[in-house]
């Protein structure tokens, strides 16, 4: 290596090192602090948390929730991905349906299911009790507060994530394979099982990994629905330990440890399974053939999913938001807009919307350049092996570790010197940045990889410097990806609940945490109106993203 080359490498190292250090401080330091605390005083945190009489139940419920919701999500996500690829042309708009549950806040979705399936006044239960074989029941037949229904609702919410991975993988399957199968006389179902599924294996493995982690760290449904029947998972245990008096951070940290370990294992496992990512360069001049054929059944499947996962819970929320109190007995004269008027007059609600939007926008604006920097390091700086590896791991970690763990970690870290940020919007922004780093990085990384290096080489040959190439070639080509990542991050952040619940203060609230407070206080009708407000705020964000990034910005997710 020449002296000049060595100097250039050191310059690059000095550019990227501060970025990695800042990311390391934000992502890894809170985790280290939590573990240090859990092991203090002869592992007092572990003894306190794992000495509880119900800990086995908690572990079993966590595992069952993760496994069975994963199964539901994998089956529904894969079937939906196949179905959307076979939609009749005029039904193409249904392609958005499996993604839309991501736009509806999970808090709103969960309370929507509660309004429908509460054993007593749940609207669907009331309808079911009109059927002759259930007419003698006074409640039920469905109990939304049971572990089974918490698993089903969680499975539905994870379906969209699996769908995103699988449908992306499906678009990369050449139509020639399918044509060959059809010519050989295979049926649609036969083609699906014999051709599509085996070719989808990488997407399925990746999607399963992500869904498993999301299921293990699932927080919203167990917290909102599970407390009613004592359903406990590790994520809710973390919340409870960190919000009891006196606060037991050590036990909270210990409760989250299995999730951290599994998260790290899955992140490493995915790295090993995916190997060299440059294998996935796809800009080669050849176009992809979509999965061919169309079927009205595909439209029916997608529509039924949309009805169950999206329309029904939203309808439940809308009905309750228009009544003076939640009741199974509805009549036209009960309907009122008072709850929507209360959104303005109830203290804190307008502030929570402003806080959600402002903190989300700031976090997104911070994440995009960080993601671009890390993606560039990963793709363009093959010579900085150690920094690349560190950047890869640090930016992947928040994907593998549940948000509630970062929430507790940040609460612990920033309620102690030297930087006391308790009660500030800054701590919300910081935790949001950490949670979104994987999305900002991975989406830009994938786009950079798929671009290959031919465009930049051509720019360099034409005499452009690195900065000019970045500004005139790379960034314009990345524009659709950046806009999509902004849309996705904004959607996820305006919904964020688990980490926000830990780092919010009583008067610095985001929409989801204030909604939870009103749910705990039993203000169900106001909760319903707030859920609609949350969906509207996110919808407005998506509309802006579509205006700027084009109508198909959601499909690029």
């Amino acid at each position, binding site marked *: 290596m020449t002296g000049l080359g060595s100097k250039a490498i050191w310059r690059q190292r000095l550019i990227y090192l501060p970025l990695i250090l800042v990311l390391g401080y934000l992502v890894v330091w809170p985790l280290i602090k939590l573990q240090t605390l859990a092991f203090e005083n002869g592992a007092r945190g572990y003894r306190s948390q794992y000495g509880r009489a119900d800990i086995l139940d908690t572990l079993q419920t966590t595992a069952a929730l993760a496994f069975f919701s994963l199964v539901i999500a994998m089956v529904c996500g894969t079937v939906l991905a196949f179905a959307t690829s076979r939609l009749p042309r005029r039904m193409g708009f249904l392609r958005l349906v499996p993604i839309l549950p991501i736009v509806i806040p999970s808090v709103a979705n969960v309370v929507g299911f509660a309004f429908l399936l509460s054993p007593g006044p749940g609207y669907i239960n009331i309808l079911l009790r009109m059927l002759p074989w259930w007419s003698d029941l006074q409640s039920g037949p469905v109990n939304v507060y049971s572990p089974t229904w918490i698993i089903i609702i969680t499975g539905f919410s994870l379906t969209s994530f699996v769908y995103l991975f699988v449908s992306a993988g499906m678009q990369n399957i050449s139509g020639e394979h399918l044509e060959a199968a059809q010519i050989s006389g295979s049926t649609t179902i036969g083609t699906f099982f014999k051709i599509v599924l085996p070719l989808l294996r990488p997407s399925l493995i990746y999607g399963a990994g992500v869904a498993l982690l999301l299921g293990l760290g699932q927080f919203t449904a167990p917290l909102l629905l599970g407390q009613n029947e004592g359903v406990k998972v590790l994520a809710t245990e973390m919340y409870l330990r960190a919000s009891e008096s006196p606060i037991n951070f050590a036990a909270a940290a210990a409760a989250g440890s299995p999730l951290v370990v599994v998260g790290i294992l899955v992140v490493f496992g995915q790295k090993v399974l995916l190997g060299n990512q440059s294998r996935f360069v796809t800009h080669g001049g050849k176009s992809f053939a979509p999965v061919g054929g169309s079927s009205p059944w595909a439209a029916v499947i997608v529509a039924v999913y949309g009805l169950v996962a999206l329309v029904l819970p939203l309808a439940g929320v809308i009905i309750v938001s228009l009544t003076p*109190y939640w009741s199974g007995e509805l009549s036209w004269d009960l309907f009122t807009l008072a709850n929507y008027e209360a959104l303005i007059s109830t203290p804190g609600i307008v502030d929570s919307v402003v806080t959600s939007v402002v903190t989300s926008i700031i976090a997104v604006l911070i994440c995009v350049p960080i993601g671009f920097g890390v993606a560039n390091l990963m793709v363009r700086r093959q010579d900085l092996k150690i920094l690349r590896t560190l950047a890869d791991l640090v930016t992947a970690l928040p994907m593998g570790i549940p948000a509630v763990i970062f929430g507790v970690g940040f609460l612990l870290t920033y309620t102690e010197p030297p930087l006391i940020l308790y009660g500030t919007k800054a701590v919300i922004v910081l935790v949001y940045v950490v949670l979104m780093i994987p999305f900002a990085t991975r989406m830009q990384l994938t786009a950079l990889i798929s671009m290959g290096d031919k465009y930049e080489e051509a720019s360099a040959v034409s005499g452009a410097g690195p900065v000019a190439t970045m500004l005139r070639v790379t960034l314009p080509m990345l524009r659709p990806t950046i806009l999509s990542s902004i849309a996705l991050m904004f959607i996820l952040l305006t919904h964020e609940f688990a980490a926000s619940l830990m780092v919010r203060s009583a008067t610095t609230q985001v929409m989801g945490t204030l909604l939870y407070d009103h749910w705990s206080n039993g203000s169900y009708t106001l909760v319903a109106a707030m859920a609609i407000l949350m969906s509207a705020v996110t919808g407005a964000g998506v509309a802006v993203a579509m205006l700027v990034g084009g109508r198909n910005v959601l499909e690029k997710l």
Partner: protein
Amino acid sequence: MKAAAAALATMVALTACGSAEGSGPELGGSWDEIVEAATAEGAVTLYSNHAPANLEALKAAFEARYPGITLTYVRGTDSDLIPKVEVESRTGNGIADVHMTTDAGWIHRSLDSGDYSVEVVAPAIDQPDYRAADGVLDDTFFVTSATSIGLAWNTTHVPDGLRAPEDLLDPRLTGKVGVVTPAGYPAVVHIYRRMDIDYRAGFVDRLSTLDPRVYTSGPGVTQALASGEVWAAPGASMDVLVERDKGAPVDFALPDNPIGIPFYSHVLSAAPSPNAAQLLADFMITPEGQQALSRSYIAALPGIPGTGVEGSDVVAQDLDLADPDTLEAEAVEQYVAQWEQKFLR
């Protein structure tokens, strides 16, 4: 990168705004100076586990009396709010000025530590009607209201109502009873213990056989009663009366030996508005403040319209705070574990 720089600058500004510490406002010397300084502070924050409707009424009454000061209230259970009070005291980043609680164990631990409260100097405390000798602890915690725990039911599903705790143990109410979890809520632990004394020995065990539905707060049970999710509740607070007055199909009755829970308040040492905090403390125990805060509850002053128990002249000072020795953290944790084994099988 300009966007990132702008975002970072904004974040630094937010940080600076949020973590401002140090030379906060001082408490005025005389009451007139306190009132003047409170108006200059312009805002006061109350953490409370009282009924949301009553807190809203208190806000309206306080802001009408002191138009220059905005009252922000944060309603939550003791298990929500006490950790926040502790963190704010530890970090010095105070948000709340006044804190109201029913947790007798914590009140006494707080008095012992002396970390969280300052002396309350409100002149209203010295009014003879207030009975400060019975209502103020160590010049800091002062009683502001009280509730009696009683029986509540949904009038559609239980049209004949409930007269005695025994009525609630009817097997037809299996799966239809709403109870509050005692987890993180020592006042509720006290209520369950009193049920076994005041209602009947073994009442809680028999209650658990009805497979009750568990809620995280009293208002949660009240709303569940209104919705018909549950039909009856043995440990309901008097806020059921507030909902009944709004037209919800619920009703409430006190048993022969009602369990009383006083709400105590204190001005926080980490209060960002120490003068406005004293002003609010004072207002809460004036007749005007009591009428708002204690509507359908038991007031801390006699003869306040819309408050109290029918046929009784009991005031909040007549209700004893639970024995703090029985509400030590370890004892509470042990009780909660036993309770969960019975109720969350």
